[in-house]
């Protein structure tokens, strides 16, 4: 009963770990860590990853994942930037263009995986390369000097927190609600739990898979727009390594690689946990070499814990 609770309540155990970590860090770095400034920077840098993680969580619940999200982040910002800078396109239209491109990419991913039957890893891996190439073509060495209206979206502040944080909160709350309370989104748990039984329960598995990829790509597109708005620049290197960070965060947050588990709120907590560790490393002036090693260890521990708990449940 205890183990079951813990697995079901990864949200609970993760939240507790985060709290403990914060307390420890307050003791070790009393002047640097528990400040409004530090927290608001932390949340700001967390927001992009989390928005993408929400989409990734939905995919992992249904037993799939998407390696192309990092490239989509670069692409949507790049496309919007390209249109605004080289063609003087109105910022709203540029944003719509960036998002539409992302939706299209998601649809292609979904269609090829669900209908044509291509393995998700191979398909999204290939798409990762293709979209990154497109992003490079659009943003070249980088685009700056965006119109003020565009920058307003990513850089305005509300109650001291910069805009992307609010977008993140809104997206997390909205999807949390949808996944918990609508029949449509709950079906993803069934698809991930037993795809065959899901089909035989009357669930239109293929259609829903396509939707999942569209949602993931759209959220990545939104994240990309927010990122380039926030930076005031469209970088061609945006989002490199994002997909693995997000998958790590989502697994930390309770998803299982085999599907059927995970809560949206867990994605937020997973990303928060990783951001805290990152923050700890920076404040602690731990050299960059160690960052990679530590994040790798975190991933192994997360996945290992996931496997161990599953095996325990099966006994």
């Amino acid at each position: 009963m205890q183990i079951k609770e813990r697995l079901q309540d990864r949200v609970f155990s993760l939240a507790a770990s985060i709290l403990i970590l914060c307390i420890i860090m307050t003791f070790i770095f009393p002047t640097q860590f528990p400040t409004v400034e530090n927290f608001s920077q932390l949340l700001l840098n967390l927001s992009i990853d989390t928005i993408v993680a929400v989409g990734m969580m939905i995919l992992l619940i249904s037993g799939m994942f998407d390696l192309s999200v990092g490239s989509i982040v670069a692409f949507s910002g790049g496309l919007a930037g390209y249109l605004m800078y080289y063609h003087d396109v109105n910022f709203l239209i540029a944003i719509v263009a960036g998002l539409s491109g992302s939706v299209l990419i998601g649809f292609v991913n979904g269609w090829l995986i669900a209908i044509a039957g291509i393995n998700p890893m191979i398909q999204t891996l290939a798409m990762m390369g293709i979209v990154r190439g497109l992003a490079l073509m659009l943003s070249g060495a980088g685009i700056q000097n965006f119109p003020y209206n565009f920058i307003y979206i990513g850089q305005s502040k509300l109650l001291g927190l910069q805009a992307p944080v609010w977008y993140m909160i809104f997206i997390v709350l909205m999807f949390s609600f949808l996944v918990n309370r609508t029949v449509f989104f709950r079906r993803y748990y069934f698809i991930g739990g037993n795809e065959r039984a899901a089909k035989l329960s009357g669930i239109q598995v293929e259609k829903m898979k396509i939707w999942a990829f569209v949602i993931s790509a759209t959220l990545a597109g939104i994240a990309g727009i927010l990122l380039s708005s926030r930076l005031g620049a469209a970088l061609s290197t945006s989002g490199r390594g994002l997909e693995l960070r997000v998958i790590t965060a989502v697994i930390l947050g309770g998803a299982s690689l085999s599907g059927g588990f995970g809560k949206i709120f867990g994605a937020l907590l997973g990303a928060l946990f990783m951001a805290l560790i990152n923050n700890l490393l920076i404040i602690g002036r731990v050299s960059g070499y160690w960052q990679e090693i530590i994040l790798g260890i975190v991933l192994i521990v997360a996945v290992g814990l996931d496997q161990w708990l599953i095996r325990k449940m099966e006994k």
Partner: protein
Amino acid sequence: MHKYILFVLSLFVLCCEPPPRYESSNYTTNLTKDKFVTTNEVSPTEEYVMITTAVNLPLYVSHDQKAFLQWGKKMGVRTSILGPSEWDVPGQIATIEQVIPGKPAGLLINGTDPGIASAIKKAVAAGIPTVVYDSEIPNSDRHSFIGSDWYEMGRLQGERMASLIGGKGKVACMGILGMENMEAGFKGLQDALKKFPSIEFIGKYDDKANVEIAARLTADLLAAHPDLAGIAGFDSNSGPGMALSVKEANKKGKVKLTTVDAEPEHLQLVKEGVISFLVGQKRELFTWLGAQFLYDMRHNTLPLSTNDARAGIVPIPRTVITGSIEIDLSNVDFFLQNAGKK
């Protein structure tokens, strides 16, 4: 019920703080606040932080970081080197933003991409002395920039190449296309070559800072232009890549190679005679002098007024060009010995 929600929402919106507009002047006449932090004592715990990407890149480690650490030891202050190990510019930005609240004594930032401008602005606005090195970042409000003059680096290569090939023949160049400093280098090269009407410049090519691509490009060029006289390289990996293909095509000495950077592999190739000329950067100066500027700003070493910080005066050079190092067979040994000691 609806009215109440509307009221709360409007309060919310009113709290909205728009981002600063660029049109407004950055030099305010606010005389009540210090623009940057100064102090009179030197504390051993005062910290100078270098933030870069690709923190493990050998070029950075053996030049920039080495000099920076030496400086810190000499001055008796703390130095830290932070940043992602990949070329992850958003990661560098996140690092800068998370270091700012800790208010270090000074920030030494590698100018990797114009996108980091907003983060640098935040640091400056927070009152931290900030120096950008290697490549200039426009619109960043940085207190100082110290780096090489890439136009000059291109010009030096052009002039040397012209004399190597006897003033006539076909010349190409390669580097990362689209990067501001390299484009300046390309221009310097082309302008220098223009003075020689018998030299034909056949084009600039993108090797994406990758040795294999540079090698393949060179092989393609050699095949397409059997009478190619010389190639100039502009990023660290151009040299080794070009040299590889030239050796494999048995054209050593027949096709003249010049390039940038003076790492052990480049020096070795000069010794072998495959590369004729290197234009090196004085990277150690970037960080040593850069750190020293930060120190001087913080400790009011050389005041230009009664209170520079309050008056809004930046008491360090705004832009420093370090000049380049020219290496060929005549002086390569001095550098090889040095490389061995590293």
